[in-house]
């Protein structure tokens, strides 16, 4: 096992983590500000990927597709908030889960009706093809760009929340929504904006990841489950927690898949070790979540003290 391989796996873990961050940031923001559990977040990820693939396919330009994906996800998010979600704020989480689960089914079937049951073609842009040398290892340029995108969005999100007027309102809204409504902030518009922002982040993640994965109906749900693990670990409602949680989950999942079968192979038959190692690796992030819940029931960075 060489240093190059370990380094490459670390980069893979960080890249996976940053894409998870894009998903979980929106999820945690929506929960933190509006107290809403949104299971349909994965569908927005799917919408971003499908629109990106469709527009990139029609125009031949990935970046146009990417913008279309983000815009479509944001628009879908705003629309969903105004039509459905708005009626759920006062209700308990079980009603929210039920309604947003119904949205998953509706959006999945809707996308299938429009685009058909077969996966779409979406390739990485020409400018980001191939590999780049990082000294000891040749790394995929596109994955490196994904790391860059993830970091840029993280910084942008931090600046938005810490430095702008909208950010102040978002922070205030998550602490005391009655008070900021009393101070004259249009809370309905704020909620729509926050939901659309979360949706845009999911759409961005879907479009970016869609270029190296299969753009297909139902692609959002596996990511959604992991994104929930991330925000439970990080502390529900905390952007910082989402960042730390996402990187932890990304690196631990990747390293687990890589190392566990090897560890088992030292004292077991290879085929058996691969099976057991792979099975255990797929549980690793849930074990991590369980551990965090035992010692820090509100996550690593609880949003509300």
């Amino acid at each position, binding site marked *: *096992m*060489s240093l*190059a*391989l370990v380094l*490459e*796996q670390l980069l*893979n873990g960080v*890249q*996976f983590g940053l894409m998870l961050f894009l998903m979980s940031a929106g999820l945690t923001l929506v929960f933190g500000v509006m107290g809403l559990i949104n299971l349909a977040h994965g569908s927005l990820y799917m919408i971003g990927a499908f629109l990106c693939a469709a527009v990139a396919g029609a125009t031949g330009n990935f970046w146009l597709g990417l913008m279309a994906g983000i815009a479509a996800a944001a628009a879908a998010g705003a629309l969903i908030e105004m039509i459905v979600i708005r009626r759920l704020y006062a209700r308990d989480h079980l009603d929210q889960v039920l309604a947003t689960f119904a949205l998953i089914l509706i959006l*999945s*079937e809707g996308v*299938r009706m429009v685009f058909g*049951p*077969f*996966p*779409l*073609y979406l*390739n*990485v842009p020409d400018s980001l*093809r*191939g*590999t780049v040398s990082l000294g000891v290892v*040749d790394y*995929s*340029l*596109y*994955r490196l760009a994904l790391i860059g995108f993830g970091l840029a969005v993280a910084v942008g999100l931090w600046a938005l929340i810490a430095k702008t007027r909208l950010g102040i309102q978002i922070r205030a809204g998550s602490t005391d929504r009655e008070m900021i409504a009393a101070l004259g902030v249009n809370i309905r518009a704020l909620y729509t904006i926050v939901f659309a922002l979360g949706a845009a982040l999911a759409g961005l993640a879907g479009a970016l*990841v869609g*270029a*190296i*994965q*299969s*753009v*297909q*109906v*139902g*692609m959002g749900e*596996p*990511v959604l489950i992991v994104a929930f693990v991330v925000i439970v670990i990080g502390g529900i409602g905390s952007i910082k927690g989402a960042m730390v949680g996402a990187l932890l989950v990304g690196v631990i999942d*990747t390293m687990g*898949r*890589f190392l566990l*079968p090897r560890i088992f192979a030292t004292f077991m038959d*290879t*085929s058996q070790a*691969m*099976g057991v*190692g*792979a*099975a255990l690796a*797929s549980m690793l992030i849930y074990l991590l979540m369980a551990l965090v819940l035992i010692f820090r029931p509100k996550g690593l960075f609880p949003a509300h003290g």
Partner: protein
Amino acid sequence: MKTLRTTALAALTAGAMLGQAQADTVTVGMITTLSGGGAGLGVDVRDGFLLALEMADAHDINLVVEDDAQRPELAVQIAERMIQSERADILTGIIWSNLAMAVVPSTVAQDIFYISPNAGPSALAGANCHPNYFNAAWQNDMLHEAAGQHANVLGYENTFIMAPNYPAGTDALTGFKRYFEGELAGELFTQVGQTDYAAEIAQIRASGADSIFIFLPGGMGISFMRQFEQSGVDLPIVSAGFSFDQDVLPAMGSAALGVINTSQWSPDLENAANEAFVAAFQDAYGRLPSLYASQGFDTANLILSALSSADVADKDGFRDALRAADFASVRGDFSFAPNHHPVQTVYVREVVEVEGVLTNRIIGTAFEEHRDVHGENCTM
């Protein structure tokens, strides 16, 4: 679109007028995957099956189609409902081996026929074989055995092998290893439905392999190929046709060009049945058929051939009629081994581009009259 009935209205009314209700119609229950990531496979099996009924002008079959969403517990519920309330005579349609393992044993035990258009787990071909279970596609290991055999022909000596961790995945690696004579540079199980293969590709790169064998059906294969292309790892891939057929090739794009894969069927296979099938499928659905569609088509024709010579209520007679496999398979010669799994030729194909569309072309033959090894353990 949950339930779809193709009963011809005319046949029903005629039957009703003669006062014999549905006595002459046979109910076929199709449980297949029509939603989620695996939907492309189920849609093709269904469309192939429907096309065969249409081409045969079969009005006496009442086909009930239900979506299992790739979930075993749902498939079990649907099977029970089809047997109990729809009074299905024959079940078919399941794509995934883990679902087949959940549904088939209890179905055939209730004296209902199950004819598999796809999944062929080793357990059902060997010790757990059953007189009412027929597989019209292949036993899982078969195409992978052919891939292992052809890897020898290509002179690969150090191959990295990988498959998802479920019954068909273990069958795939076992099948490949049964015939491959070289060394294994590495062996990996991935998760079912996994979307990111960065960790696996890094290990392939570090392993010093001279070639790769993968079994990643549906969207898993698309994700892998897309990421493999961007990784800069330049190794030849040999695979079974499942991961490189018409359901995924358009989405894979140029990454798949030149990949060698094995299959019992190919769109360019030259026989009258296949030429008619490929043309009619394109006509009806506006796309090229996949091997899954060919299997759905053959399954329907197998059932039709048996129905034409025996009554489904006469279980022994119908079983014998199925066993005779007296139909023109689109794959050419086809017969059943004693364990009710196919004896057939397995071809070697290459992914090529024809008039801007990615498809497969036959470049050789891996096995002739090939049958699975599990049949030895089948005592019926």
